[in-house]
């Protein structure tokens, strides 16, 4: 039987998803349901003096109106930060309380203050308009860079500082810098992004008054984790009385990791009003209240020798957490960012210092790549600038500093098990026709255009994560994953996983893995996920972990199935276990060629008896009936995808328009289970990264109003913003898991922003501009370039 792992199997879920047969939270309706509408703060920062619900309560169709008072009385817990980060001085991070409904203070535009439940959505909305809130408006703290200099927005959190974190050795860095021929410096802004999942957040809650069980249907990347948090910290219900179901989820990019206010509020309220509740975010609510991504202000330096060797690196960053610290909010700018900031290079000394600040803006959390795009942008801007200032070819300077031996002990935290950065970059150069660039540049110039080329080499740490490591770094949970593989009596297989697809194609790729392990046809396998009542516990999908952690749990559970199957087959075939080989779904006696298929064995496991007079069980002595196995996998290390991307852009100096002419990506994701799915992930990631580099920006005005709160102003990239992506792969297997896989979900978004910006800056003759490189910024840079060029001439 040909191996399914590695083949371009078309996505099983697409028939459902592309023909409108997907089942999303908004598709779920419960008889007698009420509709929720939230009253949200119109102010970035205000004291809540009084909330008057009397008019709303009298409005047509209104069932109930609840406020922060009630939720506090019922002792429902607030939203949490999932990682405890310590400051350089050893002190604990400072985290403000984040009640689901704000009672005393509103801290960002869109923060929920009250909620109305009514018979229809229109009635709920109309009544929400009647809730009158008396605010004392205060001056907000909006800007990342100014936060530490401004008035504290949370009581007891001095300078708005959550922590001042250090990773690395300042002294060693100073010594290295003292030896340098040159110090390369950059000042960077990593622009804040709105995740923009296609499906807005939603929840439907059904409380059963008899069993006292709450069923929450929600748009979550990690339903099990949501249940744990809501139960342990929210106190909404004990875990056994809370079922969390995330049906089809239409994109998340990190924004659906968090348990949000609305889910906690509706779950609590459903019990209170004894009615089911439905809530679907409007697109504006998504813009205002989904966790945002990035938002760093960075100063970084690279110490180099004249011949291009890197000696030391330092990174001083202010990271904006928004108004509150959320699940991955505090770790994203520290352990997911700092270690990767030295990139794919051997740099003897380095440190990353990050100050995380609170502001009166939407909370910031993990967003595709989470910390690693920011890290890669920092180091790859520095490296490109070093090449430019030293007059060394940008690819040569990279090759010169790549590690050549693996495992590669990276400067700050990670030991990278495998990789081959040189081959990746060489392949990318070939595919991009790097050497032919100068000719293309001349051609563009003859048409009055500016052309630039940019490279970025990256690695990232994903497959999160070894529990012992992450818990020692402050994580509140272990990041293992589990799976249950259930062979049904009649031969089909259900694969339960704690990971949860929100677009990644798990229905297909996980089935491929199981099919190979068990030797059964793909069609007989169903992947089941997204329901805490179905299958074992799990941590969900983010940090490119589903395959590298969740997939391995599946493999291991399948191996247990085969092991048991072998014991049973041996009994059935009346031989010793070691005389049997398992291959292509058959247990074969090597000597005699007698065999049983895995289906026959499964059947026997469930029907351990016969109608013969003599009792003859196929099960060996002491073997339990059934064929169901569970496995928990806790990886020994992160996995480390890596690669090199090369982009070419063409700029019209008159209009400032930037066109991406060519984009080449060569990635090493270890073994690839399904190239079709992987290419899709890379395409999406690159598109998102180009979005960040050229188009997307989240702008608050000085009062904290979100100016880019709709698609009329927030520039989502579109298909016509992209060239055809030219993809290539190299392969070194991960050694930390038996499949040798590394994870591919975030790489595109990690590598592409610096690739594009390096190309833009190259076209602009080295003038630095910030992301997104919009037409006006580029036009201004072109004007300057013209001036300097004419002066030089």
């Amino acid at each position, binding site marked *: 039987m040909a191996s399914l792992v590695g083949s371009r199997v078309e996505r099983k879920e697409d028939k459902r998803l592309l023909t409108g047969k997907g089942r999303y939270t908004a598709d779920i309706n419960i008889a007698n349901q009420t509709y929720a509408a939230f009253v949200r703060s119109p102010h970035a920062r205000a004291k809540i003096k009084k909330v008057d619900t009397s008019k709303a309560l009298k409005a047509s169709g209104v069932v109930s109106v609840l406020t922060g008072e009630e939720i506090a009385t019922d002792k429902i817990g607030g939203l949490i930060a999932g990682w405890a980060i310590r400051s350089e001085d050893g002190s604990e991070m400072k985290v403000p309380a984040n009640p689901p409904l704000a009672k005393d203070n509103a801290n960002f535009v869109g923060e929920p203050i009250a909620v109305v439940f009514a018979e229809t959505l229109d009635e709920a909305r109309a009544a929400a308009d009647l809730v009158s809130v008396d605010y004392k408006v205060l001056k907000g703290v909006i800007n990342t860079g100014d936060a530490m200099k401004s008035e504290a927005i949370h009581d007891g959190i001095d300078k708005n500082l959550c922590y001042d974190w250090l990773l690395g050795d300042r002294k060693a860095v100073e010594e290295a810098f003292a030896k340098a021929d040159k110090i390369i410096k950059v000042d960077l802004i990593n622009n804040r992004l709105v995740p923009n999942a296609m499906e807005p957040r939603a929840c439907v809650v059904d409380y059963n008054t008899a069993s006292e069980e709450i069923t929450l249907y929600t748009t979550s990347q990690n339903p099990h984790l949501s249940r744990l948090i809501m139960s342990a910290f929210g106190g909404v219900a004990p875990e056994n009385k809370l079922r969390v179901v995330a049906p089809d989820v239409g994109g998340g990019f990190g924004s659906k990791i968090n348990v949000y206010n609305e889910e906690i509020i509706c779950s609590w309220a459903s019990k209170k009003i004894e009615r089911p509740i439905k809530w679907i975010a409007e697109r504006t609510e998504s813009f205002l209240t989904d966790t945002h991504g990035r938002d760093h202000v960075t100063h970084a330096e690279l110490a180099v020798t004249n011949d291009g060797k890197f000696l030391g690196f330092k990174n001083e960053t202010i990271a904006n957490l928004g108004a509150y610290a959320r699940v991955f909010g505090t770790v994203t700018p520290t352990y997911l960012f700092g270690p990767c900031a030295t990139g794919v290079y051997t740099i003897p000394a380095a440190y990353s210092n990050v100050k995380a600040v609170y502001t009166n803006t939407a909370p910031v959390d993990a967003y595709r790549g989470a910390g690693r795009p920011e890290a890669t942008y920092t180091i790859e801007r520095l490296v490109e600038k070093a090449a430019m200032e030293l007059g060394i070819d940008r690819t040569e300077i990279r090759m010169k500093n790549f590690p050549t031996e693996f495992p590669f002990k990276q400067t700050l935290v990670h030991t990278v098990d495998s990789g081959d950065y040189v081959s990746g970059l060489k392949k990318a150069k070939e595919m991009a026709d790097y050497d032919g660039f100068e000719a293309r540049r001349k051609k563009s110039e003859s048409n009055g255009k500016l052309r630039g080329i940019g490279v970025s080499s990256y690695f990232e740490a994903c497959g999160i994560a070894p529990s012992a490591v992450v818990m020692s770094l402050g994580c509140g949970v272990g990041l293992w994953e589990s799976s249950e593989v259930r062979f049904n009596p009649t031969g089909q297989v259900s694969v339960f996983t704690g990971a949860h697809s929100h677009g990644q194609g798990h229905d297909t790729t996980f089935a491929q893995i199981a099919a190979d392990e068990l030797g059964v046809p793909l069609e007989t396998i169903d992947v089941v996920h997204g329901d805490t009542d179905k299958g074992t516990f799990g941590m969900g999908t983010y940090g490119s972990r589903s395959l590298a952690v969740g997939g391995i749990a599946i493999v291991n559970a399948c191996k247990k199935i085969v092991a048991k199957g072998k014991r049973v087959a041996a009994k059935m075939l009346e031989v010793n276990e070691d005389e049997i080989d398992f291959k292509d779904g058959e247990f074969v006696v090597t000597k005699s060629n007698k065999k049983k298929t895995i289906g026959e064995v499964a059947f026997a496991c469930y029907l351990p008896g016969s109608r013969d007079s003599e009792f003859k069980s196929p099960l060996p002595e002491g073997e339990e009936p059934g064929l169901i196995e569970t496995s928990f996998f806790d990886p020994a290390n992160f996995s480390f995808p890596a690669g090199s991307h090369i982009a070419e852009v063409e700029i019209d100096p008159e*209009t400032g328009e930037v066109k991406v002419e060519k984009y080449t990506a060569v990635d090493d994701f270890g073994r690839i289970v399904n190239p079709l799915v992987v290419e899709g992930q890379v395409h999406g990631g690159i598109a998102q990264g180009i979005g960040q580099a050229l188009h997307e920006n989240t702008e608050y005005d000085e009062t904290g109003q979100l100016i880019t709160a709709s*698609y009329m*102003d927030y*520039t989502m990239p579109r298909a016509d913003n992209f060239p055809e992506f030219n993809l290539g792969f190299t392969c070194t297997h991960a050694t930390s898991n038996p499949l040798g896989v590394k994870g591919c979900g975030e790489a595109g978004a990690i590598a592409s922003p610096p690739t594009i910006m390096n190309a833009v800056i190259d076209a602009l003759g080295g003038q630095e501009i910030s992301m997104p490189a919009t037409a*006006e910024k580029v036009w201004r840079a072109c004007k300057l370039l013209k001036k300097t060029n004419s002066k030089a001439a």
Partner: protein
Amino acid sequence: MKTFNYHTPKDVKEASKLASSSSAFLAGGMTSVPSMKLGLATYKDIIDIKHIKKLSGIKVSGKSVTIGATTKHVDVATSKEVKKAIPSLAKLAGGIGDAQVRNRGTVGGSIANNDPSACYPSACMALNAIIHTNNRKIEASKFFKGMFETALKKGELIEAVEFQIPEKSNYQKHPNPASRYAIVGVYLAKHKKEVNVAVTGAKSSVYIDKDLSKKLSSSFSSSAIDGIELDSSEMNSDIHASGEFRASLVLTYAKKAVEAC
């Protein structure tokens, strides 16, 4: 969205009878529906004019192209007659928003709305259009009054827009990267006796740049407008483009338009 009465009149007479101070005509709904949804506008009566046959269609005579008010952008963009008579008008329609917007949005709705960054108003100005309503004919130069303001009286219905066929013309647009409306749009039309340079997106409402029009009337070449500095003080400034950038774009696209003619 607040509730409203929905009407589908069969003819213009019935439509205008239904109109009141708290009604709105509904054409493509690309502007009116979102603004109702967001609570920016509320009406008691919505008068859907899409079912009035007479209001849709394209007629070309020797001198003019007349487009019915409810003709969709996609139909103008793909019309063989329009492409032949005034290719730049078809190009303009084909560059509006995105496919979804073009499949519903209409020329009547576009000019009745007079969004400062809409494309059609510039075509009307440059092509000396005449706006036919159920009561009268209005010259384009008297139709667009200011930001979202037109000469239309309450309840007055646009029936068709008549564009004068120029000798040569071209439309150049710098799209807003998010909405794809015009940050700046320059419609250049060379008529027998004059050249019109109409600009949209740059100021509070569409306008004819007299200076550029005059220079190009005397010499129709991009060098004729080389070195001109446009005053940016009245230009729009927002997160996507400052007034200074817009001023530069007007000139850049005016030159591109001349070169493309």
